[in-house]
């Protein structure tokens, strides 16, 4: 690669005097609620998704408390069923799906592109309001009695048998879907149309590639969820037979339609995590990601193949042996691009300058946990094993390794990595490292025993269980306690750092990328003048040379 200098990049001295930036540009509640600034919208999302994360986390913790003993002695069965349902719905629809795209994507993506904002700032604000309307439906459901269908809303239970708030919940999920669609649309147009001069496709940070793939999946898959949920609501409200066999419908059809969205939705949740990891690996090894193009195209490969594997959720649900074989085969193929990413991140560390700062600790945790989550996906994709472990705690453990060990580890890495950019303040490093350690230990203690208890035979969504499963469940609950502490700590010290944290310069990590070429926090218009990009992505040697010359650290 021919590296070029970045002398002409507009690095700006960190300033000690009060400087105008997006936070102090305007004051007042309305200046936030009616803002069209992508950075302020990101902050709105940050508060909203954090609130939902806390709610979903409380549900999870209550479940783990109930599961300390084999008897269902803490809650009634109906309450327990509502707890796992609401945990799933809140965490998936209101936290995992919006978290990284709507918080970090909104904040960082336009800056990475050297743009002043997203292509459609008003749509961006609308997406937050749509999200909040969906969220209010969720909160109303929680307050008025909950819902007990499981987050999957399987028919005919959801349409005919549950007498909880199914309609309001599905309506909330339906509405929230439009918020994702608006965000995805905005990202796609922005990435196509608003890149800075010189920022060619293969100079884009891998974050952008991954967000692009995510947006494509959002745009193509979410409408299917909307259709499915509308059909479900029609059947429930009007007794039109679509999924209920008693009315002439087909319950397995529902599962096909649901998973046609919800399997790609897994990639809507993990691709942004991979996006963050690619950025952090580069920043904390000060090295170009090994196999840049392979990592970039593997995101697109995942997005494409992710649409072809939905029925691997249904191997025992009533499909032909040959359909099962086809979906099993395709499932094996979708594992390849993920493996490519893991190997490339790992080998990027070869002869690198590896920092042990908090975001990198989360990255190391991510790679380790995502690997376990990925290989256990192979167990589930292998038909003979899946028949046994399907709908057991093995599955629960597997997708938590991907969603929590993957996406949330990446989210935590990203929050710490961009915190100085977002707030202009450094978080306390040692507290950060402690939280990363607690999350890693707590997570493994929580979820690894669930692989074992699942294979032994504990079905998921069980309020009471056989006594021989207790030891592993107690371990799991103990782990959940450590994990909760690991998530509480950052909420405290990050809040503390807003006032007491050390001031961060424009580029506290010595990382390369347009977001580090503007001040922290960035000015309202991101760049005082449009940057011109003359370097490849992650060109650290050239960057550090330039940094030394300009004394810009």
């Amino acid at each position: 690669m021919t590296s070029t200098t970045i002398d002409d990049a507009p690095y700006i001295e960190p300033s000690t005097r009060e400087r105008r930036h997006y936070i102090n540009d305007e004051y007042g509640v309305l200046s936030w609620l009616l803002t069209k600034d992508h950075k302020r919208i990101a902050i709105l999302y940050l508060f909203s998704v954090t609130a939902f994360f806390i709610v979903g986390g409380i549900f999870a913790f209550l479940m783990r408390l109930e599961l300390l003993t084999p008897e269902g002695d803490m809650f009634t069965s109906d309450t327990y069923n509502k707890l796992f349902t609401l945990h799933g719905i809140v965490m998936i629809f209101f936290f995992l799906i919006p978290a990284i795209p709507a918080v970090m994507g909104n904040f960082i993506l336009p800056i990475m592109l050297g743009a002043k904002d997203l292509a459609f700032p008003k749509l961006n604000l609308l997406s937050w309001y749509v999200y909040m309307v969906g969220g209010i439906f969720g909160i109303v459901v929680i307050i008025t009695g909950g819902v007990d269908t499981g987050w999957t809303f399987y028919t005919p239970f959801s349409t005919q048998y549950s007498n909880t708030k199914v309609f309001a919940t599905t309506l909330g999920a339906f509405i929230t879907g439009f918020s994702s669609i608006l965000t995805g649309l905005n990202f796609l147009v922005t990435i196509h149309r608003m890149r800075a001069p010189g920022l060619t496709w293969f100079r884009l940070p891998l974050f952008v590639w991954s967000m692009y793939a995510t947006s494509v999946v959002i745009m193509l898959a979410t409408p299917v969820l909307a259709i499915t949920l509308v059909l479900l609501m029609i059947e429930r409200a009007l007794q039109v037979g679509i999924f209920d066999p008693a009315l002439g419908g087909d319950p397995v059809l529902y599962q096909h339609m649901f998973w046609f969205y919800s399997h790609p939705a897994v990639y809507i949740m993990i691709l942004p995590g991979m996006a963050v990891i690619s950025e952090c690996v580069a920043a904390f090894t000060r090295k170009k990601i090994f196999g840049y193009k392979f990592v970039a195209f593997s995101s697109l490969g995942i997005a494409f193949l992710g649409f072809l594997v939905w029925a691997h959720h249904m191997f025992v649900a009533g499909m032909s042996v040959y359909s099962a074989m086809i979906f099993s085969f395709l499932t094996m193929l979708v594992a390849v691009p993920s493996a490519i990413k893991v190997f490339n991140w790992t080998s990027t560390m070869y002869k690198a300058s590896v920092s042990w700062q908090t975001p990198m600790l989360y990255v190391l945790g991510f790679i380790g946990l995502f690997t376990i989550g990925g290989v256990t996906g192979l167990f589930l994709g292998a038909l003979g094993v899946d028949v046994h472990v399907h709908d057991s705690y093995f599955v629960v453990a597997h997708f938590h390794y991907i969603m929590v060990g993957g996406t949330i580890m990446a989210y935590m890495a990203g929050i710490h990595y961009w915190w100085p950019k977002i707030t202009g303040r450094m978080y306390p490093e040692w507290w950060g490292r402690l939280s990363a350690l607690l999350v890693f230990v707590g997570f493994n203690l929580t979820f690894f025993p669930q692989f074992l208890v699942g294979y032994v035979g504990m079905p998921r969504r069980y309020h009471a269980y056989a006594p021989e499963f207790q030891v592993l469940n107690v371990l799991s609950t103990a782990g959940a306690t450590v994990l909760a502490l690991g998530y509480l700590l950052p909420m405290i010290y990050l809040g503390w750092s807003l006032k007491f944290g050390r001031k961060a310069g424009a580029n506290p990590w010595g990382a390369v990328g347009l977001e580090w070429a503007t001040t922290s926090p960035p000015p309202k218009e991101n760049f005082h003048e449009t940057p011109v990009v003359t370097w490849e992505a992650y060109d650290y040697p050239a960057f550090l040379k330039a940094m030394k010359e300009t004394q810009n650290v």
Partner: protein
Amino acid sequence: MTDFPLFPEQASTVAPLVDGLYLFLVVLTGAVSLLIWLVIFYFAIKYRRRPDNELAQEQEPPAILEMTWIVVPTIIFIGIFIAGAWVFFRMQRVPANALEVYATGRQWMWKFQHPTGQREINTLHVPVGRPVKITMASEDVIHSLWFPYFRVKADVLPNRYRTMWFEATKTGRFHIFCAEYCGSIHSGMIGWVEVMEPTEYQRWLAGGSEGSLASQGEKLFEKYACNTCHTNTSGARGPNLAGLYGTTRQLTDGRSVVADDNYIRESILNPQAKIAAGFQPIMPTFQGQVNEDDLIRLLAYVRTINADNGVATAVESPASAAESRGAPQTTTGATTAAPVATTTAPTTTTGGAAGFSLPGTTTTGVGGLKPTAPPATAPQAPPTTTTRQDQR
């Protein structure tokens, strides 16, 4: 069994295959994962940032690696697929000499019926060393019948027959779980499969029933007046059912179907869906009149009537004992703690529905499930949007 098992007993013919594949995957993926972690930590320590190492040394691993870790994992993954599919085929292909058992799932119990007429709730008696084929359907929502010690599982769907099979290799008492979330007392929809020596099983079968399932079906065939049209004579208003099961049928619209379980089920519940060639669509629907248990009996009858005389021949019924209620309780020691099987189907869905509160405290050896605590509040009645109550 210890109180802390990490591995369920292997009690069926497919269990060693599943476990073999599972352990192979554990070793393979464990080794690869361990390798990745070791490399990561080796790099993270060896190349940690130091004052003389502020900047990466610009050296990249050789590019051949990229192709290696695309091609090699792909081959391994396809190998895993083939192994998994091979085991799956073994699980799906039902052996010819399988014993027929019928299962019905409903909120929140498992009902089993034997061809010889025995009916059980949340307990299933089977002989060791003989394949058992279960034909099953649900009365309400989707359930999933899981025998963890046999490593087999299949979803049980409303209004559709599915089959699964296993061959037990060990006598004893093994868990039955519902694996698909089905409502309030999902975790109480559990039971035990009692695997018995063949001789004991024969003794158990002799214990009593209301006559074979097919003969019960024959009575229903008259009760529902099926025999007024399906008279098995030429010129009858309905097709001759003798010898029909398993054959290919021509329909009036030119299609042809195999007369399997689901075809017979549909022809009873929704007779207008497929009209046999040469007949008028005059049959009324029996939707809502024939319950799942009776459907199974009718099915068992239709399966067994042969072309000659229309008499059930396949299974012979043990002498119908005066005590016709449920499974004999005294044939094996293990069954003493079995839930009392009752043919009296609960008429409501309230918390105390028979069958889910297993007497786990009285079991020895194998830990029993503790009774699910009854909900503090009365469980909600099914939603008013359903007429399902009427069918019970």
